[in-house]
């Protein structure tokens, strides 16, 4: 009995992994079963998660606490939020489905506004700052590094010297590439297009290789589980 309880879930995991991999051959019944189990479990899990991690701690518990503390304004504030959220359910009938636009409008409007400052700070201000200065505070276009290279022409000094200028030129060219309302005949746009594409593709190539290696690592991990960890578990449980 103990052996079954130890082996049951790892064996299910192995079977489901193999079932998912059968998709590489063709769409088949085994894959469909695994797909529907995966989807059904994830939907069920997300409902339970929303109830235990959102509805109860973020709505039910604070409302109860505010009411017991006599803080009725804050309690009403939370209850109103809950009621607006409930309007999503109005989509179930055609007559009332227009009501669901209120929570949608509030959600989209809130996030559109809420994201302005973080997006500006992280994607504009910080990025441009990092194109002028490196994290240590020295300029990216640093003449001293070129001086060091000419005094001691090693590969390391060369990389150090061109690293900053490459980033600066790359950022400028790519920014110009993403002008949409200027004509392609515009001199600056015309001469920067091809070098910008080369820089973009170099960047994407690097990202591709890096991510691909991460995926291979995940694949090795799964194969290791199926061909090494699971047989070991069977041996140690049934053999011992």
């Amino acid at each position, binding site marked *: 009995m103990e052996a079954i309880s130890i082996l049951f879930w790892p064996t299910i995991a192995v079977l489901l992994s193999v079932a*998912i991999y059968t*998709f590489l051959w063709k*769409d088949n019944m085994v*894959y*469909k079963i695994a*797909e529907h189990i*995966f*989807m059904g*479990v*994830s*939907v069920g899990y*997300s409902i339970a998660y929303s109830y235990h991690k959102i509805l109860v701690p973020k709505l039910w518990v604070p409302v109860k606490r505010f009411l017991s503390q006599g*803080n009725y304004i*804050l309690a009403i*504030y939370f209850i109103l939020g809950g009621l607006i959220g409930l309007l*999503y359910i109005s*989509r179930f009938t055609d007559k009332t489905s227009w009501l669901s*636009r209120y929570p*949608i409008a509030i*959600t*989209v409007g809130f*996030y559109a506004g*809420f*994201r*302005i*400052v973080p*997006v*500006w*700070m992280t994607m*504009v*201000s910080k990025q*441009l*700052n*990092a*194109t*002028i*200065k490196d994290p240590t505070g020295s*300029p*990216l*276009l640093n*003449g001293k590094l070129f001086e060091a290279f000419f005094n001691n022409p090693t590969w390391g000094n060369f990389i150090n010297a061109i690293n900053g200028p490459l980033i*600066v030129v790359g*950022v*400028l060219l790519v*920014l*110009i590439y*993403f*002008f*949409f*309302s*200027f004509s*392609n005949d515009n001199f600056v746009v015309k001469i920067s297009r091809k070098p910008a594409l080369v820089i*973009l593709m170099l960047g*994407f*190539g690097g*990202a*591709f290789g*890096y*991510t691909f290696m991460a*995926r291979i690592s995940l694949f090795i991990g799964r194969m290791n589980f199926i061909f090494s960890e699971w047989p070991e578990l069977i041996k140690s449980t049934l053999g011992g």
Partner: protein
Amino acid sequence: MKKIIFIFIIITILISPIFSEKTENNEFDEFDPKARVKIIDKPQDEGTHVYVEFKPLNKPDEVKYYLLEVYNKKADSEELVSSFKIENKGKSLRFSSTLEDSTYSPWPKSRTALIKAYSSNKKGEKLNQFVSKTMKTNYSWFNINKLSAFLGVVIFLILVYIFIKKARTGTKFFIRKIPGLDAVDSAVGRATEMGKPIYYVPGIGTTSQIATLASLNILAPITRKVAKFSTPLKVPNRDPVVMSIAQDVVQEAYMAEGRPDLFDSNDVFFLTRQQFAFAGSVSGLFKREKPGAVFLLGKFYAESLIFAETANDVGAIQIAGTDSVSQIPFFIAACDYTLIGEELFAASGYLSRDPLIVGTTKAQDYLKALLIILLFIGIILNIFDIDIITDYILQR
């Protein structure tokens, strides 16, 4: 006498553990725990954040562990908000704590931070309290460090206003060719000729992500093109809110083309919130329904290649686009056409030619031009050790 001596010995044996424990605790009591504790108010915040600098003044062999507690002190109570177990390595440490408490305040207000420090043991128990410090926090309604964001938004709003007004008065703005979008007509046409459905996946992002909103903007003109040919359009979703918006967008687009009869709310459907369950389900749908064209536009993560490869496998024309830098290479490798980064944001203007969106695209370009000029000035000034731009305008 013997009895008295016997009783004395028994009592001595019984109470000896008390003394032995005391002796063990005296290990810590031999040295007075000492530390330099400084409370620093986080500037420009709503009065909730404090930093605590803690420098142990005992050697590690004198007092090995400390316990630091941060309280939100009120008139009638003290509410513990965070506690830090510290191992004495002779180094100065800095902790961050928030004084947000159960009586949540929606507006900025001053709070009182109370710091208590104790000598402790390995288990993290309190032994001797040796520090008790309080500090009142300052609050502000405006964070001056984010002034650049405010100015940037104001400039952008002015530009948007000017260009939308111009576009509405009939000025035609140029938008350069985006190859992926020119292929939309042929993709829709091909699916229609083959009698196969079209799939539009708006990514796995939520409405808080700009790429998702851009994707929902593109969905409208694509649906209008699809409506002309009465080709079935299917939109699987990972987020219920995105699904609701997508349903409305598709319905309105069909109505705008005079074909409300083509709309079926079941064609814009929710699958699951779990990333790879969603990827598996969409791949299964691709395999079973063999779409003629697949649009993958929005926010994508690790599932991007699963979608692109499966759609490629069933022979669909794929037009993909995302702003996730790590996923664009996969789309470039596996899809027929790819919208790179910002092309996704310009796409809805390009397809719809709506003056509102075209005007916004023009304003974006002008803001970018201004930022390039600012960057250029910043780089030149920085070479001469002048840091006005980096210190005051483009802060980290």
